């Protein structure tokens, strides 16, 4: 997108114009004051509180698309920064409070013992589009059995600081807390055919379609993901 905005005319002018401008400024000031008086005062807009105890379940799978990548990508949501060539794109229904972005520690979303890479905020829709790296089976299918993988929000922190041991601890805690994997029926209803992407860029474009569909409030995110590539 290219746009041009023309600013207001140059500020200073000839002295003869200054008196007129001063009067105009006074008028503008009065108008501004009147508008300010009519505008509602800014209201409290706090973040929704988080639970005291973790992990927290209650996540539903709405869409599950296995994929492969011809060009491996880095899973930045793990301390090991592993590369992956396959995985699953999920659309999850979650508690909006848990999804609301925070600058401080956020609850980390797990699918089994793997951190899920969140591609959108989901705070208004309660829908998260995520990527979960997974190995590829001998049959060429993505080896992620969602019916055996509890999906939950674990201890708040930074995903890039979560290593394999920490992820396993979180999964064990989820199991102890009785957080069950999605039912077979839910997975069956959500599961789509496996798709092959050239690389992460194509994967993200696919995700942008899902965000547009499931979390339409995030139009800026969608347009940002679809920004026109630079060409010579």
């Amino acid at each position, binding site marked *: *997108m*290219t*746009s*041009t*905005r*023309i*600013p*207001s005319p*140059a*500020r*200073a*002018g000839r*002295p003869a114009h*200054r008196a007129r401008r*001063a009067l105009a400024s006074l008028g503008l000031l009065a108008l*501004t*004051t009147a508008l*300010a008086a009519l505008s509602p*005062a*800014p*209201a*409290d*807009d*706090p*973040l929704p509180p988080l639970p005291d105890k973790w992990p927290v379940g209650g996540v539903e799978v709405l869409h599950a698309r296995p994929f492969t990548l011809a060009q491996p*990508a880095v899973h*930045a*949501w793990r301390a090991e920064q592993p590369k992956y060539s396959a995985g699953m794109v999920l659309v999850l229904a979650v508690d909006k409070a848990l999804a*609301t*972005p*925070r*600058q*401080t*520690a*956020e609850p980390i979303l797990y699918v089994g013992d793997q951190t899920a*890479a*969140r591609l959108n*905020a989901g*705070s208004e829709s309660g829908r998260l589009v995520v990527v979960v790296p997974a190995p590829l089976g001998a049959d060429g299918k993505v080896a992620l059995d969602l019916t055996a993988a509890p999906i939950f929000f674990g201890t708040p922190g*930074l*995903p*890039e*600081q979560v290593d394999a041991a920490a992820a396993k601890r979180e999964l064990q805690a989820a199991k102890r807390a009785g957080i069950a994997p999605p039912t077979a029926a839910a997975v069956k209803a959500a599961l789509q055919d496996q798709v092959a992407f050239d690389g*992460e*860029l194509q994967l*993200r474009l696919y995700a942008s379609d899902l965000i547009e569909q499931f979390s339409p409030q995030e139009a*800026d*995110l969608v*347009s*940002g*993901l679809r*920004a*026109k*590539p*630079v*060409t*010579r």
Partner: protein
Amino acid sequence: MNHHRGQTPSRARAAALLSALLLCAAPAARASDLLINGQPDVSVAQGASLTVSVTGTPGALSYLLVDVSPGPTVIFGQSLPLGFTPAMFTVGLGPMPGAGELSFQVVTPVQPELLGHTFYLMAVVADGATAGASDFSNGASVHIGGREMQLAANPLPGYPHAEYVRAFNAGAPVSVAVDPTQHPELAGVSCSAYVVAHKSPEQWVSDPSLADVRGAPTPVTFSGADLASNIFTVDGGTLNANAGTSIGVGYDLVLDLDGDAQLGNLDPIDGFGAEAGFYVVHDVTQPGPLAVTEVIYSGGIWLGQDLYYPTNIAGMGQLPLVTVSHGNGHNYQWYDHIGYHLASYGFIVMSHENNTQPGVESASGTTLTNVDYLLGHLDTIAGGALLGHLDKHNIAWIGHSRGGEGVARAYDRIIDGTYVPVNFTSADVRLVSSIAPTDFLGTVSATPHGVDYHLWVGGADADVTGCASNDIAQSFHLLDRAEGKRTCISLHGVGHGDFHDSVGSVATGPCLVGKTDTHTIMRGYLLPLVEHHLLGNVPAQDFLWRQWERFHPIGAPVLNPCVVVDLQYSPAPTSGKFVIDDFQTNPATGVSSSGGNVTFTVPAFAEDRLDDPNSDFTDGASLFNGFTEGRSTDVTRGLVFDFAGAAEQQVSFAVVPAAQNATGFAWLSFRAAQVTRAPATTLELTDTFFTVTLSDGSGHSSSVSTNAWGGGTEEPYQRTSCGIGFGWGNEFETVRIRLADFLSDGTGLDLSDLRAVTFRFGPGLSSATGRLGLDDLELTTN
């Protein structure tokens, strides 16, 4: 110089005499003092009278050596404070009088070609105790200026009566102020005050004519006995402020004493130099004159960028770059208010996709890769519009929340060598600015090192809250880790989301400011910030430190009673400042970090880390409640004390010998904060003020109140939670007092012999009661 005593010898005779002196020089000792107008270093106008004083053995022959270089030069093992260049000449002063002190008058020559030059002097007196030996004095210097003096000012209701400033808002009056006690030559003088378009010294020499921009000069008579009665309005607010893409139109203020409409050698001038006498600035909250083009594109994974640049960039030179790294859950398209504003003034702004969700390390990576990508693809981005027009060596990084920590970490990674940029270096990044940053990575990694660092903080932030319970949410940590120039703006009633232009304020607390007014404040502060740091704009600096109540952008939302702005400003150590006490070393309360004695009569006096020791702001046993400048691994420290009662109370810092000659400094600077929820604070919930007194070695003292410019040290934002009570975290505000302000009305204070800085409290001296934090007591040059 025209010497009233002694004769200038011929060069040959001088050389012979000097040789003889030097041959007699071993052994030599420092038993002679040389002062000019009572100081070792002076700056004087042409035609000014100087008093030269030399001490030494009575009856001994004395000489004055004058050179163009300060040396030092080692001769016979002695380090002498003179260059001994071929230009040096010697003046015989004759025998020392019986009192052992020789004093004579000199008039500086009136020759334009000498303007701006400095001459270095040393006295040599025959040593009366040792036959054949000589005593050498200290070095001294005389700088020949025009009749440069501070003239452009705002009147003040109390002492020091005049506020000499660099920036005046368009439409505001400009006054000329003359202190007859410091400038007795002007007492009773009638003259014409000219406001002229700024000229460089070279331009003044080639064209000394005075052309008043208002059409005619203002007649003034300095008949008053003190400064307050010698302040006259010279302009009611008519001066042009249209600086195009810059800030401030420069003017020189001249007092034409002889009425010839020329800048004569005796005419005082404010602005004889590269810097103008004063600048008139337009409304910096309003857009600049340039049309702006915005382009959104992607260079690949995590390389989405929103670019803003002047539409007519093809006809422009090389422009500075400002980048924006957004926060978690934010979007790179949410910073139009920054992009359009700065681009309309000739900056290139690039806001980029920032990988904040995994964490700050990931975010720092996308800051680095996006800057590298932009700089490496100037030939293709926006059709190559930026090619040849982006100054790669003049970059500012702005980051918001996790992105605010990310930009500091990104800089740290370059310094640490864990990221090596392809298309720029750390030296190209001139400013790092964090908006409400987190502090996940802590002392070692979330640090901007020595780059100029700037911080925004919102008092109503409901995300990076600043509460004592969470180190990650305490933005001030990064400011206090910065080792270079530090500036900060903290805003009461502003939420986390108010800093971007999408929906949501993420704010909680009383008297919320809202997004519209926050953006107005941001525009009005951001432009001076980048103009100052990237382009060295002179009047822009005023916006970064002067009390908001006294000086703010014309369009600032001052009608909104919720708007409260606190500013911090601290020059880099490399600026030549002297730290009297930053409380980092010498933890004993009786010794400053510079080694001077600290005495106090105030109660509850303690030094410690500026880090609330528990997890809330509830008032309790700790004096350091409410401070969030550091975490347990940080070293930032400060001072806290109470004041109250009918008797005067003091905190006094002795100035060590190394800084007692304060004539080379321009400002006394410190930062102060009211301590939240302390009874001493809440009892009088308003700006607090106190008195600062300087004392010299001769018993002279002079005092200035910290509310002389309106405002004082702001009360804490009255937000609740984070424990019991009202009041959020402590917010430092910098107070800068011109050292010359302590000289108004003939106080007699000798700044070449400064011995103590004293903070005084009590009736007539301060607010009635308070608990104060104090830090970074410094003498600064600028």
